[in-house]
């Protein structure tokens, strides 16, 4: 019984069925083990691999410079920004907006710098459902290439205070 001590010599060889099961499980674990690094080499969608720390106040400054330079309009009080190809894109999570609204071109590669100037936020691109943790003090650097035109939304999926559920951003791809 599992509630009584086992017989004196319990270190016994496994049975055939047990050996088969454990071998199969181990093979499956090895396949899983290989998949993650392989996808890094051959896959096209991977999390950020460029570590960079940035103080929230500094991120506020650089993202404001970016917004002023390439601003093309405004919607609901939030700047609409159209960065030319080859320019680094700064996206700021703050209570409770994603700033700015971005206008991007299909097929062009953009280097995104996403960070927060206050609390933790969750970058959640819809409807493709791609999610990244946005941490104040750290720059989440991601390379995006829009592959289809249309309007996309960014919701926040990390709790960031009382109006967390109103935090929605927008990316327009032309």
């Amino acid at each position, binding site marked *: *019984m*599992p*509630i*009584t*001590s*086992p017989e004196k010599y*319990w*270190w*016994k060889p496994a*049975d055939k069925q*047990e050996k088969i*099961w*454990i071998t199969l*499980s181990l093979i499956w674990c*090895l396949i*899983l*083990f290989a*998949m993650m690094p392989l*996808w*890094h080499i051959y896959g096209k969608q*991977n*999390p*950020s*691999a460029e*570590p*960079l720390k940035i103080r929230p106040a500094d991120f506020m400054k650089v993202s404001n410079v970016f917004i002023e330079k390439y601003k093309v309009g405004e*919607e*609901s009080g*939030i700047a609409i920004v159209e960065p030319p190809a080859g320019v680094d894109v700064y996206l700021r999570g703050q209570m409770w907006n994603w700033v700015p609204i971005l206008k991007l071109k299909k097929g062009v590669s953009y280097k995104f710098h996403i960070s927060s100037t206050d*609390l*933790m936020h*969750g970058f*959640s691109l*819809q*409807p493709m*459902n*791609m*999610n*990244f*943790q*946005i*941490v104040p*003090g*750290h720059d*989440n*650097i991601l390379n995006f290439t829009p592959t289809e035109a249309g309007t996309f*939304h960014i*919701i*926040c*999926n*990390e*709790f*960031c205070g*009382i*109006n*967390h*559920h*109103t*935090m*929605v951003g927008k990316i327009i791809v032309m």
Partner: protein
Amino acid sequence: MTNAAEFRTCPITGKKVFKTTQNLMWINAVTAVVFILIGGIMALLVALTRWPAVHLLPADLFYRFLTAHGLNMLIFWIVFFEIAGLYFGSSVLLNVRLATPKLAWLAYLLMLVGAVMVDIMVFTGRADVMFTSYVPLMAHPLYYLGIILFAVGALIGCGIFFATWAIARAEKTYEGSVPLVTFGLTAAAIIAVFTLSAGAIIYIPTFLWSLGIIKNLDAAMYRLIFWGLGHSSQQINVTAMVSIWYLLGALTVGAKPVNEKICRTAFVLYILFINLASEHHLLTDPTLSSAHKIANTSYFMYLAVLASMIHALAIPMALEVAQRKNGYTKGLFEWFTKAPWGQPGFPALIFSLFIFGFIGGITGVAYGTEQLAIKSHNTWAMTGHFHGTVVGGTTLAFMGLTYYVIPLIFRRELIGKKLATIQPYIFGIGIVLMSLGMGAAGTLGSPRRHWDVTFAVSIIPFSFDPTVILFTTVAAIGAMLAVTGGAIYVLVSVLSVFFGRKMAANEAKII
């Protein structure tokens, strides 16, 4: 204080049950049930708010009650129950008096004071920070202090478990090796020690930060160490739950492990590798390198998955062998169809095993891949995953065990045996619907910890595919069933413990 040497002999197992152990198990288990009641009421209110057709609470109360739900369920209910389990696994199963019962009472008081402090802070709106309390979101200092006190109490509880083990060994109250259930609980206690240490490493500076003594805490560093507590504490639950599966197998059909070596090796794999699962939370984080993420979550973690796969064979195998010995030998599945489905322990065991493995486990391994984490991180699919593991798995196993602990240890006959028997079915089916509903809505992008997935008040208009609302409703209906099952559990266990017929000393009835 009762005499530390006073004991009775269990008429069924022949184990010595010491009065001090019995009292301490009683107080910890009863307190656990009080906290599942609080957490359950919160669960009901939170579920009724996420259900778009009802949308019960205002936003501030929703986030506050969600914080309370997480803490009361994930920490207070489970850890109090586990401390009772540790005292059982050491003192009762090893036939020995509990080491330092006075210290055990101190541990209990620390945990209770800590838990009450945390609940007061949360319910008075001074800690709307969610279970994770991610820096720089700040709670009242007493919130952090409450968690520290609770963790210190739990750590003392683990120490008493090891000390009791040592006394049993010194006084030779058992022969050869410890029973498998004690072995599994030992693995759980070892995991608890490094888990609670991670908790101390992060909560003490956070407490000082909330007092203004420390000026800056790095948010990413907080996440890394916090999950050493946050996820690893769930690994304590997994390990304790697997031990309880073996125990329930023995109590319901007389199952004994087929190969002790294999079962015990699997527990050792848990000790060595399962902590790394906490890295899964950080897969979409900035700053950590890919090599770091891959080494922790890909290479080592799968050895813990292997351990779960081994238990997934060993437990059903033990059940089948026992049932065939019981005479159910017809065909491939008579052992399963003729199992004791009419007593609560067996359906609780089977539901727990299946929900943990097929809903909680599989999703956990899948979302723990770096690239799939992009598709699931912080979505409601995560909530679906851990309700499969910790609610459908751990909580249901603990519930099933309670119906045996009451007559065997507390010597009270169950009130409402029929209710107790249908309870695992209602709770299990509820959790299946809820977890799958959450998983489906989350896969379509629905976020976790969100007051309004219809985005009725957002500045920039947005709405999900309507299927999200459909699956949210499925999850909510599942939640209603689960809450009903939870209510039955609380009702039956409270009534039985306080008003159940006291059983005679020699009454050898399991349930």
